[in-house]
């Protein structure tokens, strides 16, 4: 069945695929996850705030970004960020923003919306009594959040946060629209150079499947552990 195919192309290019392509994908995934969780948590706190304008701003932000395709946001940011940067530093010419920085900003801001909704559910899962207990011993809002509510919310939400990160890991492949060498980008360059499209894309699919499946198994294990401890 595979007689017409040449899988040696993988052997010839795997270093490039993993050390250039996958390295970029993983780096972007991890940084965007960290940034997205932090920003998303802040958004969640704003959405749940009793200060109405804050809740409104965060709610609008989340709803707008969630209703726009990610590819569009990637494009939009890539071309707009240099101008926004110029406006911020009051420069006449668009500032130079690297591909990685631009992607990181895009993914952080986009994924923050999804992490926000997860953290909102997490925060709401903590009983009102816990908050009252924090206030009653003299903690202020930030201390109650930081010491009591968020640690428990994170803990409850770790499996779902990780599941969202698997989605993020896959979404990162969309940076190919900017001709960036992520894992898919690297594979597609080699595929086109050597005329081995089927082999390369099959290989890429296989790697994505293996890593995502392994991660989801890990999530399931974590879920079981947390369920027991609680």
């Amino acid at each position, binding site marked *: 069945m595979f007689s017409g195919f040449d899988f040696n192309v993988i052997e010839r290019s795997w270093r490039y695929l993993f050390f250039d392509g996958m390295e970029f994908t993983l780096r972007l995934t991890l940084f965007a996850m960290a940034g997205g969780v932090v920003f998303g948590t802040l958004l969640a706190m704003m959405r749940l705030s009793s200060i109405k304008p804050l809740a409104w701003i965060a709610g609008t932000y989340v709803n707008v970004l969630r209703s726009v395709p990610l590819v569009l946001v990637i494009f939009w940011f890539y071309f707009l960020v240099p101008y926004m940067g110029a406006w911020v530093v009051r420069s006449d010419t668009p500032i130079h923003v690297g591909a990685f920085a631009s992607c990181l900003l895009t993914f952080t801001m986009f994924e923050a919306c999804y992490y926000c909704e997860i953290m909102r559910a997490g925060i709401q899962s903590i009983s009102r009594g*816990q908050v*009252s207990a924090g206030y009653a*011993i*003299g903690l202020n809002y930030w*201390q109650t959040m930081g*010491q009591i509510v968020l640690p428990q919310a994170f803990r409850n939400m770790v499996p779902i946060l990780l599941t969202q990160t698997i989605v993020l890991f896959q979404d990162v492949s969309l940076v190919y629209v900017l001709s960036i060498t992520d894992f898919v980008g690297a594979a597609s360059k080699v595929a086109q150079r050597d005329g081995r499209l089927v082999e390369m894309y099959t290989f890429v699919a296989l790697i994505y499947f293996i890593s995502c499946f392994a991660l989801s198994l890990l999530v399931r294990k974590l879920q079981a552990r947390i369920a027991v401890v609680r």
Partner: protein
Amino acid sequence: MIEIKDISKWYGTFQVLTQCSTRVSKGEVVVVCGPSGSGKSTLIKCVNGLEPFQKGEIRVDGISVGDPKTNLPKLRARIGMVFQNFELFPHMTVSQNLTLAQVKVLGRSQEAALAKGMALLDRVGLKAQADKHPGNLSGGQQQRVAIARALCMDPIAMLFDEPTSALDPEMINEVLDVMVQLAQEGMTMMCVTHEMGFARRVAHRVIFMDHGSIVEDATKDDFFGKPRSERAQQFLSKILHH
């Protein structure tokens, strides 16, 4: 110590408290009782500002609770509160539960906070449980830890919001014993509870609430001897004869 003057509170258009006034002097133990939904928990939560109120004034040690200029966290740190559902922090050990606010709010050193925490834990008879998580303790033990946690802050008064209502019957006494001891040492206490035995033993005054109003506010002997309102008589006859 605690002065409550004409407090009224609404949830939307529904009035939960209607012009409640009372006071708790230094060293006095006041028990608040009444049927469920009568507003007793809401009233006690107004005292340390956990529940906002729309009308009236509450002063604790001369400081107005409802005043927006009042530093509420600072005031709350001086008032201990014990909840119906214990509300220990489940992600921390018992000793971390006891030291958290001492370090974060009072600025005590970790060592000093731990020493204080252990001393109070010993007092409620749970020194051996210091490194456990709350989830591994029984309800009665959790509530005793919660009392110790409140006492760690050297409170000027203690508020109890139905501290024994969520407990199995055989655990009620271990919590009440701690409360009785506190009362006998002269702690200012305001307790929402149905434990009339506790009220008889240590209360100076009993407040009876119904439909958001204070119906009866009498000394213990008057309250148990000859409650003036019919509603209080009915309530007493129901909970004393079972």
